[in-house]
Structure formats: C-alpha cells, structure tokens
C-alpha cells in the first residue's frame, strides 16, 4: 500500500531537517567559542543530504513491475566540517591568545546559519503537512463503502 510509503518519505524528510536544525543550533551556540590553536577551534558543521534510491535491479528481478522506481525519501550522508578560513582576531589580552597575540574564532557565519534555520524549519513544516494530508487520505479510504 503506497499511502504508507508517504509516511516513510515525509518521516525521512523530517528527520533530515531536524538534524539540519540540530547542526545549526550547534553552530550558533559555538559561534564565539574561542581557541588558541587552529586544531582545537570549532568549525561550522553541515549535513550532506542525498536521495534514497530504490534498488532498481532487485525491483526488476523481483517482478514488481507495477511499482514506480522513484527514490524513497532523503537521507543524511554525513556531517562535514566547513573548511572556510577561521576568524583570527588580534586580542593580546585575551587569556587564550597565542604567542603572536591572536585568538582563533570559529568559521561560523551567523547570518548564513539563521537563513539555514529558516529554510530547515519551513521544509520541516512542509513535510508535516504532507504527512497530515496522507493521514486524511488514509482515513477517508477507511470509510469506503460506509
């Protein structure tokens, strides 16, 4: 029954978007986490999304010819750290300043993160309304013949 697939698809979308919101929250929370060395400093984290594809071969050999081979939702391939240049500030009186008097700040762009947050929460809402529609369609279907 493919109506239940819609729940799965919207579910993967919601999971991916909430993970994206999670990284955004982490990035904004750590936007000012200073460090004295380049290795220790926090770097902006970004999730990588990709579509989940159905196994075309197994479908062709399994004989389910009527099924559509669309992809089945979205998955998070992994979380990568941004390699944008770090923010080096000259603050000799800062307790974490290095020998040259520089303090490393994360490469988090707060404006970008806010835009990302809005996009993620809108996409999450869209997936919720899709799931709601699927639920209504299913409930209607259960009243068939009554």
């Amino acid at each position, binding site marked *: 029954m493919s*109506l239940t697939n819609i729940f799965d698809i919207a579910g993967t*979308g919601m999971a991916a978007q909430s993970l994206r919101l999670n990284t955004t929250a982490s990035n904004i929370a750590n936007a000012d986490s200073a460090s004295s060395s380049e290795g220790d400093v926090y770097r902006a984290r970004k999730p990588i999304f990709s579509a989940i594809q159905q196994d075309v071969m197994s479908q062709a050999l399994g004989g389910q*010819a009527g099924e559509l081979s669309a992809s089945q939702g979205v998955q998070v391939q992994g979380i990568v750290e941004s390699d944008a240049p770090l923010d080096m500030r000259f603050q000799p009186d800062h307790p974490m300043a290095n020998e040259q008097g520089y303090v490393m700040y994360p490469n988090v762009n707060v404006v970008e993160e806010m835009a990302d947050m809005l*996009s993620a929460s809108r996409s999450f809402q869209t997936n919720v309304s899709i799931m709601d529609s*699927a639920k209504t369609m299913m409930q209607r279907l259960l009243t068939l*013949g009554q």
Partner: protein
Amino acid sequence: MAISFESALGIHQKALEVRVQRAEVLANNLANADTPGFKARDIDFKAVLGGVQAGQQGEQLAMATTNGKHLPHGGNSGVSGSGPDELLYRVPSQPSVDGNTVDTQEEVAEFTKNTMQYQASFQFLNGKFKSLNNAIRGE
C-alpha cells in the same frame, strides 16, 4: 446478469491508485527539497490512466515474454505501463545553483490539487459501492 467488480467500479479504482502513486512521488520531491542535484519527478496522470483505459478495452499491444528470464514489462500489471519510463522529470522554472529542480510552492500546489482529485475519485468510488448496496438490498 452477473455483476463483476471490475466492470461495476469502472475506471475509478485505477484512478484512485494512480492518485496515491502520484502523491507518493510528490511527497518524495518535497522531502528532497534541499538535496543537492535532486531532480523533481512527476507522473503524467493522463498518459498512465489512458494506458489503463486502452488496456481495459483490449486495444493495447502488450509485449510477449517468451522466456522466463525476460524482464517484465509494465503492460500487463495493475497500472498499465507504469514502469520507470512513465516517471517523468519536471521542467524547472527557476533552476538553482546546486542542481536541485524542486520548486516547493509548485510541488505543494500539485500535492494539494492531487489530494482534492483523490477525494473526488474517492467520492465516485464510494458512490459506486452505494449503488451496489442499493441494488443488493433491492429497495
């Protein structure tokens, strides 16, 4: 006169089936609204249902499978001809830099429209069942 469900329900059960499949494809587009390189897809409802109608009237030329190892063709299955080749790619109105062609507004509009049309098909199908019930009761 025998009543078979196939002829009594007509096109509506197939229409409902295709509507559900289309809802699935559109939901998938929306779930991948932020996936780089994802291409939005859609079903040509008219073509799929046209294939079903032609199949019902026995006018469709189905491919013969003469060997057990032949891959099945969509021609004889439930929704006729709805193999991967029926799943089309949407022409993007505003292509984005990351190669994603999902236009969220358009997809939501199509999904809502599809849901309404699903409810219409449902009403027709429900009406068929009601008339069958009336015929059985003989009131």
